[in-house]
């Protein structure tokens, strides 16, 4: 049953992610007092990329991009079939690593530079993602998602620090300012187009598709903090908060300039250390 839910969510995730991405662009436009593109714009972009020729730099790249895609999908499946949350994070890390390698394999200046920045971004997010998992563990004494959602108290009550930390690194995962140092979800930026600079056509379509999955995955991470007792209320609150967080991210994207990588490292690691680490300390002391 749970495994079926996992497969179902693999089908739902890209649509939900794409709509979220469309809403994001729409809201962003409205915040700048523009009309903005239609909500379905991400689908149009995706379709366009599938219709174009792929100009490839080497044969290795599309393989790695496929790996990037598959492991994000696996990550979604792991979470929705109630498996181990840590494994989902490992799978996500693996997938991001594949994208970096795809950029590296181009052996081109922009790709190379942003691949390394992407690695740095991963180094910025990984502690916090692991600590999020630890927050869930300390709440429900299990890394299994099925146990996390059926715990009697929602994780947000015991791990607010982890939640705060997660919000800080969320712009990195969603490729939004102020932390979009390797690649922005906007088309235009200083590193040309970051890790995807030398990816084109159908391969690029796959990267776009993966990004939708990632957006959905991040919403899931946020929503999981509010699930309790396997109850509908918990899930609804989770969905509502996830949507609200997405809106906040859009706002963040519009009001903050991009920071330098040193600032990014300092901000993310110190918030992780203080918020999540402090939370961890308190929880451990309470449980001892």
């Amino acid at each position, binding site marked *: 049953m749970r495994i079926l839910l996992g497969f179902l969510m693999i089908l739902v995730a890209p649509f939900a992610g794409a709509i979220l991405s469309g809403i994001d662009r729409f809201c962003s436009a409205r915040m700048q007092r523009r009309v903005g593109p239609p909500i379905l714009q991400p689908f149009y972009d995706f379709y366009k990329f599938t219709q174009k020729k792929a100009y490839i*730099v080497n044969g290795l790249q599309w393989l790695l991009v496929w790996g990037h895609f598959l492991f994000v999908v696996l990550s979604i499946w792991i979470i929705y079939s109630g498996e181990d949350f840590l494994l989902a994070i490992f799978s996500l890390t693996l997938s991001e690593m594949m994208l970096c390698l795809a950029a590296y394999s181009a*052996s081109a*200046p922009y790709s190379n530079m942003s691949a390394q920045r992407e*690695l740095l971004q991963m180094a910025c997010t990984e502690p916090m993602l692991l600590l999020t998992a630890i927050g869930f563990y300390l709440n429900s004494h299990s890394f299994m998602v099925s146990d996390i959602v059926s715990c009697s108290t929602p994780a947000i009550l015991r791990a607010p620090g982890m939640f705060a930390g997660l919000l800080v690194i969320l712009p990195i995962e969603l490729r939004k300012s102020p932390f979009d140092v390797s690649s922005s979800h906007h088309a235009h930026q200083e590193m040309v187009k970051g890790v995807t600079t030398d990816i084109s056509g159908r391969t690029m379509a796959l990267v776009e598709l993966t990004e939708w999955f990632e957006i959905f995955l991040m919403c899931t991470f946020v929503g999981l903090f509010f699930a309790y007792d396997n109850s509908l209320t918990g899930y609804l609150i989770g969905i509502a908060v996830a949507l609200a967080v997405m809106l906040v991210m859009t706002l963040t994207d519009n009001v903050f300039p991009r920071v330098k990588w040193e600032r990014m490292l300092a901000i993310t690691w110190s918030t992780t250390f203080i918020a999540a680490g402090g939370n961890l300390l308190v929880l451990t002391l309470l449980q001892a």
Partner: protein
Amino acid sequence: MGIIEFLIFFPFVAAALLYLLGNGEKIYKARKVIVKGSSLVIMASVIYLAVRVLAGNESGSFLTEANIPNYFVMGGELLLMVLVTYYGFHYHKAYAAVLSWIGTIPVLWLDISGYAVEGLPHFRVDNLTVIMCLVVGIVGGFICIYAVGYIKDYHHHHRNFPERSNWFLAMLFVFLGAMFGLLFSDNLGWMYFFWEITSVCSFLLIGYNKLPESINNSFKALWMNLLGGCGFMAAILYANIRLGACNLSQLHLMGSQSSPGLMIVVTLLAFAALTKSAQIPFNGWLLGAMVAPTPTSALLHSATMVKAGVYLLIRIAPLMAGTMTGVMVTLIGGFTFFAASLMAIATSDGKRLLAHSTVSNLGLIVACAGVGHPESVWAATMLIIFHAVSKSLMFLCVGAVENETGSRNIEDMHGLIVKMPRMAFVMIIGICGMYLAPFGMLVAKWAALKSYIDSGSVWLVLFLVFGTASTSFYWGKWLGKIMAVIHKSQALRDTTHIGEWEAIYPLAVLVVMMCMLFPFISSYLIQPVLNQMFDTIVPPVIGGSDIGVMLLMLSLVISIPIAGVVVSRHRSGITDQNTRSYMSGINAGDDRHFLNSYGDVQPLYMSNWYMIDLIGELRILKPCQMIAASILVIFMIIIIGGAI
């Protein structure tokens, strides 16, 4: 003559044979046969031993009466002391000689004066011994096989070094013999003897090519390890005279009474183990050891020498659980894991990076042992196995690449996947084995994380999560460098020795196999260790559906390249087209050059990112050593002072 004595003596015999054979082109064939044969014999006998022990036919304690061997051990210790004294004075480094005296004379006095406790078994075989023997025997054996071809190439490229390759190979085998002795010994005095052999051996191996730098670094290794030996000596003295114990297993039995004196012994042993496993502040010797030929580094840093330290720590892990000593060891280990992985980011020399990474991973193992819970011991053992195999594979690959291209700098490995496709593929497996998801190291790290949380050590959890982040940064950079596909480059002639491949391929297969078989390794090899160590049935650490998901991930990882080959042969529809990479439109036609502002062709060079100014070794090594040293000193004063 049991299998134990055979395993200890046989390598010494092989070593003697190899040494007496001498050098030269003529004996090369014979030497190859001997090395390969003895390595295979060693591998076969450790497997035989493992099968017998696992089947329950051979375990327990041996050799209670050992008067004559005792004289041998004493003689050996004296010999080592004389050797170190000679070298110490010959190279004007008297401090090494003094340290050796301090370490050896009291132990000799103990044996002669009759204070030493006797009448207990000197050898012991249990599942932990078997695991370590498998690691040492199999990985060590492959390294020896590799060494034959390597050392030939090495002298081919470095003609200015005196050819002493017979001596070199002999030393490798002596090392293996000493390692086996160390693993089988239950008697602290005997363990100490083998411990000192490995110290001296590593000193001799590091100084192999007799350059001033090698000599300096070898003495660095010597004095650090002898300092640890002094700690070991003190532990033996205290245990024999005050506690009346001479065996590790005796200490275990005393653990339940938790006498304050016991903690002194445990702390001193832990100190010795920390020096041996190159934890900060003692990481200098391992970094310096990189001047030696590659098999030395591989043997010292992946399979044997450094593993001796963590082996001892795992042995005393249950005694450390929840004590101040445990806190000291976990703090040092966790700190080392984090700090060494930061320094690895700022390192571009391949071997040096591997050294930092070894130090860092050992830190993790040390921290696991210090926690002392069943889960953490599981993680520590798992880490030892996976680290030994993956790291030795990496060392051997870097050595082969250095022989081929003349450089071991990671920058020069740009585009290795085109230049040396086979080697690059194996290196990719090795690197993935070190840090990526479905592979072994990460499984162990996962268990470690779980046990850290359960034991409530907040600092350790934080060290682990931040250390993991920086670990994936430096490995990712290296992996990217290898995978870059450069336009207009071609495969180099592969001159890697067939003997080197004979070691590299099996190790690569081993890395992948072990990932697939890790549930079996866990339940048949490691679970019994926990049951023996904690005297209870310990529930499986990672089990249930997790294993299924892990295997799913692994099969995905493996199937991606295979699917790629199949799909690329049957592509239809809008076809792809090749193009050059984007360089703001000034690509000069190939991806290697661009047009500069004069309109001239200029070569392109892409460097990796090292952040030397932020976390370079020169910048943070000294402060880190200061911090770790002060932690160590303060804790030891508190523990020992408090106990006395």
